[in-house]
């Protein structure tokens, strides 16, 4: 049985539902020696800001049980550099590119969205209102439905490309934030970003991260991510969902799809296994066969509750 893994989301075709997650795959070509980005559903870029950003002091990562904390702090060389240096090879490689972006304040968000809107080959924009690692431009927009909605509206006004909003799990009511984003014009919702966490080196009595707070990712967070995808899907907001959080196998990806995700993103797993996304795609295809699904799209949201 051949299985059709392609998905269309807001007019954009993804060859498979398995994309790289922002910040865990660079700008898509760093691993070209082991993985052709055109074989992925798409490449979600490292977060892009209008101006270059330095990021947080080291140490920036530490491992935890079945997960890791990172406090990279959205280090990136800015949108212009992205357009000039990174997009030409990505276009040449035939990758489907989703540009993840953020700003220090609403104006920066808007100017970044406007700049990305003009870049040829950027298939969609992923608005990061959820990074727990930076004082500004980060999580506070994602935890307050009103602020989140305003930010989405403002960016919506400057781009005709599909606009995805990426949500933070560090909230009491994920559905309220999701609804605000959709009402403000988000075309899709990506969930989840990392859980806020810390680690302590008991010998030095200091935080294990230079920035103290970091974002928890990896298999550890999968049950929480899956719960949020299910809750938002069940709320019937009418937009497709992109599931993220701890995916390391095709079975994990399928769990998200059954819970309601149309696409998934793979983050931390790429660090353990640079070719993880290809294996996950193969395993997902195999699962579709086992479940008798000719199109992966037929499985979206088919969890029996």
């Amino acid at each position: 049985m051949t299985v059709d893994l392609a998905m269309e989301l807001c007019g954009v075709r993804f060859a498979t539902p398995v994309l790289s997650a922002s910040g865990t795959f660079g700008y898509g070509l760093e691993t070209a020696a082991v993985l052709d980005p055109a074989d992925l559903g798409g490449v979600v870029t490292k977060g892009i800001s209008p101006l270059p950003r330095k990021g947080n002091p080291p140490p920036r990562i530490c491992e935890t049980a079945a997960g890791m904390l990172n406090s990279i702090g959205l280090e990136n060389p800015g949108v212009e550099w992205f357009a000039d240096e990174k997009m030409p090879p990505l276009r040449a490689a035939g990758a489907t590119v989703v540009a993840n972006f953020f700003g220090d304040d609403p104006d920066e968000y808007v100017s970044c969205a406007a700049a990305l809107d003009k870049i040829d080959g950027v298939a969609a924009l992923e608005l990061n209102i959820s990074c727990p690692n930076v004082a500004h431009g980060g999580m506070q927009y994602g935890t307050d439905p009103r602020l989140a909605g305003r930010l989405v509206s403002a960016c919506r006004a400057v781009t005709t490309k599909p606009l995805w909003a990426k949500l933070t799990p560090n909230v009491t009511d994920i559905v309220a934030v999701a609804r605000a984003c959709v009402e403000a014009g988000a075309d899709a919702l990506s969930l989840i970003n990392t859980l806020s966490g810390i680690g302590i080196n008991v010998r030095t009595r200091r935080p294990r991260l230079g920035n103290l707070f970091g974002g928890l990712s990896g298999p550890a967070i999968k049950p929480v991510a899956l719960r949020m995808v299910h809750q938002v899907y069940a709320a019937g907001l009418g937009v497709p969902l992109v599931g993220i959080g701890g995916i390391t196998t095709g079975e994990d990806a399928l769990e998200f799809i059954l819970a309601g995700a149309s696409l998934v993103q793979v983050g931390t797993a790429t660090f353990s296994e640079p070719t993880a996304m290809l294996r996950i795609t193969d395993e997902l295809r195999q699962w579709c066969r086992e479940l008798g699904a000719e199109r992966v799209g037929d499985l979206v949201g088919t969890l029996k509750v």
Partner: protein
Amino acid sequence: MSTTNVAFVSAQVLANEDLGADCRLLRLAVEPELDTSAVRPGQFVMVRGPWAHHPMLPRPFSVLDTADGQLEILVKVVGRGTTLIAGLHRGASVTVLGPLGRPFPPPTPGVRDLLAGGGAGIPPLYLHALRAPAGSAVELLYGGRSAADLVLVDRFAAARLSWHCCTEDGSAGSKGRVTDLLEAQLDFPGDQRVLACGPTPMLKAVASLCEARGVACWISLETEMACGIGICRGCSVAHPEGGWRCTCTDGPVFEAGEVVL
């Protein structure tokens, strides 16, 4: 970074030898996709064993030596990941990503290389010495707390390398630290460079010695790493003029002035 010769392969543990001082030597048979002849001294590989999600991340190890289709690494046990890797039996499967990172500069005719290392910081220096073309002037300076820490001396001897060692307790070689050995050697009249690998305090001491003498100095750094290939930005070290360098792709070998230690 040029990643063109980087491969991600599965590998088999061919041998696991106890070297004492919590160090083990692992010989790995890598698939032909990883071209072992392309490995340069100072480069490293990311290694992960067949366990589930804890630890999840692979661990970086310098390449100690290569043979056709084989890699050797020296593993010093310091935490959970190295405990598991050091405990792998012959026949166990691991994954290997590499070769990675910027190597040491190759020997230059007419310039003597002084290689200063200690403990688990010796592998890349050993490989540099081993690969130096005949006639190169290369001196290995090897320090430890006591004789048992100098786990590679038999290999040095077998390879007929030129080396000096020292221990803090005087149980082997001269009594003192590797920086003492180095200081003595720096009086050498001709052109020379220092290549160092070891704990950060030692690297600092080496770098300032070299600066004082006006001798070029290269150091190999260790930081925590998630990806090893420049995509996570987790391995940053500060550049003296601001901004960061990635240990995994800009390094692990840096010229001393390139990074703030």
